[in-house]
């Protein structure tokens, strides 16, 4: 019993000592060992099972991965006096753990230092540029469809990427002194902050749309008028052409008929007299009706015999 107790206690003590001396460095971590607050040796960045002096030496574990930094959505003013919310984030990593440990001790301090650095640089960069420079990245030609207003894109100088680079470069230098490497700065969000500006933008959008809508309607009316005009023209053309052709045909026929009549009626003096006589007779038939009062002299051809026989 007492032997077992001794072994148990010895094992316990050995376990505690070992547990403090042995440590595992994970794939995504790096470690600094301090002895009474003073860093001993370089940072351990290789993963695996490691050993240190128990109790006297202390472990400080840091991330090896890329870490996030979220900026507060800040209300900033651009060079052209537009009020915008700018929401920035950055990725960074602890590049020199020793320096990082000495300057900042832990991540919380690092975050607050990054706040100072990046917020400041962002403010500077935004204030030096027009809104368009922050929003746009390239001078690409927009694809215009028929409703797009034509004068939409003003040329930009450098654009969003250049501003990001400026912030990054400026922040990088400062951060390097803290053992921090900033990988990247991105604008996560840029929006109008001021309701008045926003409202003005909405009004502009509305009037722009109205302009397009008006143009559509006017185009429709114009096109309709053109079609109706074309219709009128076509009508006139068709009708007049038909009239012309019809009259030509009639004229030709009249001419032919006249020629035929003349060829027989105008053959000799006799035929002319005979024609005149026949035509007169025909006229009698067609003009005299029951409304006619005929005064006939017994002198005439017809009643000549009447007079004669009466005597």
């Amino acid at each position: 019993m007492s032997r077992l107790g001794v072994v148990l206690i010895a094992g316990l003590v050995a376990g505690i000592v070992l547990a403090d001396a042995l440590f595992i460095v994970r794939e995504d971590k790096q470690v600094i060992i301090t002895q009474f607050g003073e860093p001993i040796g370089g940072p351990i960045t290789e993963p695996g099972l490691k050993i240190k002096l128990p109790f006297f030496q202390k472990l400080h574990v840091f991330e090896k991965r890329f870490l996030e930094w979220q900026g507060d959505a800040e209300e900033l003013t651009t060079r052209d006096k537009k009020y915008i919310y700018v929401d920035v984030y950055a990725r960074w990593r602890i590049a020199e753990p020793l320096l990082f440990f000495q300057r900042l001790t832990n991540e919380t301090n690092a975050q607050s230092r990054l706040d100072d650095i990046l917020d400041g640089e962002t403010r500077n960069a935004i204030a030096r540029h027009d809104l368009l420079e922050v929003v746009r990245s390239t001078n690409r030609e927009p694809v215009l469809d028929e409703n797009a207003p034509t004068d939409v894109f003003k040329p930009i100088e450098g654009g969003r990427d250049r501003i990001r680079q400026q912030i990054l470069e400026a922040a990088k230098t400062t951060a390097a002194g803290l053992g921090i490497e900033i990988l990247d700065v991105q604008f996560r969000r840029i929006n109008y902050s001021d309701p008045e500006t926003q409202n003005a933008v909405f009004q502009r959008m509305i009037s722009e749309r109205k302009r397009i809508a008006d143009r559509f309607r006017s185009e429709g009316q114009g096109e309709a008028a053109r079609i109706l005009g074309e219709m009128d023209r076509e009508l006139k053309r068709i009708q007049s052409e038909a009239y012309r052709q019809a009259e030509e045909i009639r004229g030709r026929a009249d001419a032919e008929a006249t020629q035929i009549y003349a060829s027989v009626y105008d053959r000799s003096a006799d035929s002319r007299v005979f024609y005149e006589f026949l035509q007169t007779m025909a006229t009698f038939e067609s003009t005299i009706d029951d409304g006619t009062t005929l005064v006939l002299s017994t002198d005439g051809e017809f009643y000549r015999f009447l007079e004669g026989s009466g005597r």
Partner: protein
Amino acid sequence: MSEPSGGGPRSPLDFPDFSKLRNFRFPGRKDGPGGKGGGGGDVSARKIGIALLVLVVVGLLFGSIYQIEADEVGIILRLGRYRGPAHDAGPGLHFKLPIIDQLEKLPVERQLKQEFGFRSETVGIRSSFADVSEEATMLTGDENVVIVEWVVQYRIVDAYRYLFKVRNIDETFRDLSHAVMRQVVGDRTVDEVVTVGRVDIENAAQQELQALCDQYETGIRVEKVLLQSNNPPDPVKPSFNDVNQAEQDRSKLINEAQANYNRVVPRAEGEALQTIQQAEGYALDRVNRSRGDAARFDALFAEYRKAPEVTRKRIYLETMGKVLPQVGRKVVVDRSVEGLVPMFDFSGRAATGGAASTQTPPGGAP
């Protein structure tokens, strides 16, 4: 998609405690068989020791067997070190060394999805935006405001990078997606965003996002960026709709005019043909009649020439015979009566004048 983010931050905190705990129990286990070999000691202590030993062994065994689902891969960290893709565990049942090996599961075969600007489900997605619509509001290159909602579909292709290169990878991925979409939209007009440029935006966003994912060593492959609905902000919406309405109005006006045209012009063309055909008919009629008249005259004239006097008289008398019965009033005047005409009142009857004047010539001519 919440699994990897849940697994990531937990392990670094847990692990030291975990190993200490196991180490603590380690001597106890070694101790058991040692105590037994030495003999002696009381029975109850031995029993407790054996029971403890069995418990620990069974516990370790259960902790050592793990299952990988069909769409997952198991990543093993041996003493904190990743041993390379060759040691990754595929689907099925696997064994790992207790204490020494640490397991992470990742759904590499599954297509993962994140939504921006809207939520079809609220499970497990953290957003740093209080309001989802805030997330979707962005500025276009012509300084207009649009609401863009989109979905990113992606897969984890490099489990090592996904786990060990970026902390809070889901949040990072969301941030990247936001930045990229705003960059792409910021380079386009409101019209491109709302109508014509949707496919272009999807492609550009996918490329940019993939480039950033590579730069950040996320191990993510962006499979597709899908725009959901791109809308103008609510106050502006009616005027956008009005543009659509106007576009339809335009078509309507044009169609109506075209319909009018189509209703009128073909009919006029037909009517024109009718007019021409009527003229043709007139022409045929005129020419045929004249031919007929001429033939008749010809024949008559031939006979007339043989006996002109008699023929003329005959025709005259026949005509009179036909005409006189129709005359309303007939007045026969003897040659000796003079000054009769002024007694008639001609004012009421127009036809009588003509008739009266034609009275003499036919008779008088021959």
